[in-house]
C-alpha cells in the first residue's frame, strides 16, 4: 500500500472534531470517492474522533490518501493514550456505552468502513484504523 498524502490533526476539543470531519471530507473528495462514500467515511470519522475525545481524553487523527493495487482510498487512524477499552467485544456491540452516547460509535464506524482495525490495551490507549476504498 502506498501513502500519497498524509496529515495529522489534534483531537483535543469539539472544534477539533469538526475540523477533522472537514479535512476527511476534502481527502475523500480528492480521492474521488462517491458522495455516499464520502458521507460514510466522514460520519465514521466523526464517531471515532468523538470517542478519542470523550473516552480517550484526546489524541490525534491521522488522515492518509492511499493507493493499493490500482485502487485508491482514504485511511484514517485515531489514537489516544487514554484508559483503553477493557472489553473490546462489548464495546463493539451496538447499544453498549460507558458514556452518554447511543453506543453506536465503534460498531457504526465499522459498518461505514471497508476495513476496520482496533487495537487497545487497558491503561495504554486505543488505536482505531479504518479505510474506505473508492
Amino acid at each position, binding site marked *: 500500500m502506498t501513502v500519497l498524502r498524509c496529515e495529522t490533526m489534534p483531537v483535543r476539543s469539539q*472544534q477539533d472534531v469538526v475540523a477533522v470531519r472537514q479535512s476527511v471530507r476534502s481527502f475523500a473528495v480528492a480521492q474521488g470517492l462517491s458522495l455516499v462514500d464520502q458521507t460514510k467515511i466522514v460520519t465514521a470519522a466523526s464517531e471515532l474522533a468523538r470517542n478519542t475525545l470523550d473516552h480517550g481524553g484526546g489524541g490525534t487523527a491521522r488522515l492518509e490518501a492511499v493507493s493499493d493495487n490500482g485502487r485508491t482510498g482514504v485511511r484514517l487512524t485515531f489514537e489516544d493514550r487514554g484508559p483503553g477499552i477493557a472489553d473490546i467485544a462489548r464495546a463493539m456491540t451496538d447499544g453498549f456505552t460507558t458514556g452518554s452516547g447511543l453506543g*453506536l460509535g465503534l460498531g457504526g464506524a465499522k459498518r461505514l468502513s471497508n476495513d476496520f482495525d482496533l487495537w487497545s490495551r487497558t491503561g495504554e490507549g486505543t488505536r482505531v484504523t479504518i479505510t474506505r476504498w473508492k
Partner: protein
Amino acid sequence: MDRIPILRMGQFLIVSIQVDMHDRLALTLQADLAARISQTGAHGVLLDISSLEVVDSFIGRMISNIAGTSRVLDAETVVVGIQPAVAITLVELGLSLPGVRTALNIEKGMAMLREATAGFEEADAAGRNSLSECDDDSAAL
C-alpha cells in the same frame, strides 16, 4: 456564544441548521428550542437539515431528543431536507430515527405540520390562550 436561530411563524417554530455543529452547539439548540416552545406555546417545529452533510449518532440523537421533547411539550416536529447520502449513512450507522416525522422539503413539512396541528388552531382561536401571552407582537393581536 454561537447559537442556531429559531424563527417563529404563526404557531410554528422554524429552525434551519446551516453550520457544521459541534456537540455543545447541538445541545444548546435542544435546550433553546424546548424553552421557546414553552414560551410561545407553539404547536409545531420544523427542523430543516438540508444543509447538513453529516448526521452522526450524536446529531441523530439530538434530532430524536428534539422530537421527543417537543411532543411532551405538546408540539409536533417534522424534520425536512435530509440529503439522500445522509439518509443512507444514517440507516447503515444503525439510526433510523424512530418516532421522528420527516418530509422531503420545507413545503411538504409545513403541510404535514398544518395537518397534524389542525385541531389546535381552532382550540387556540376559541380559547385565546397562550400564543399571544409572551410574544413581541402581542400588541397587534
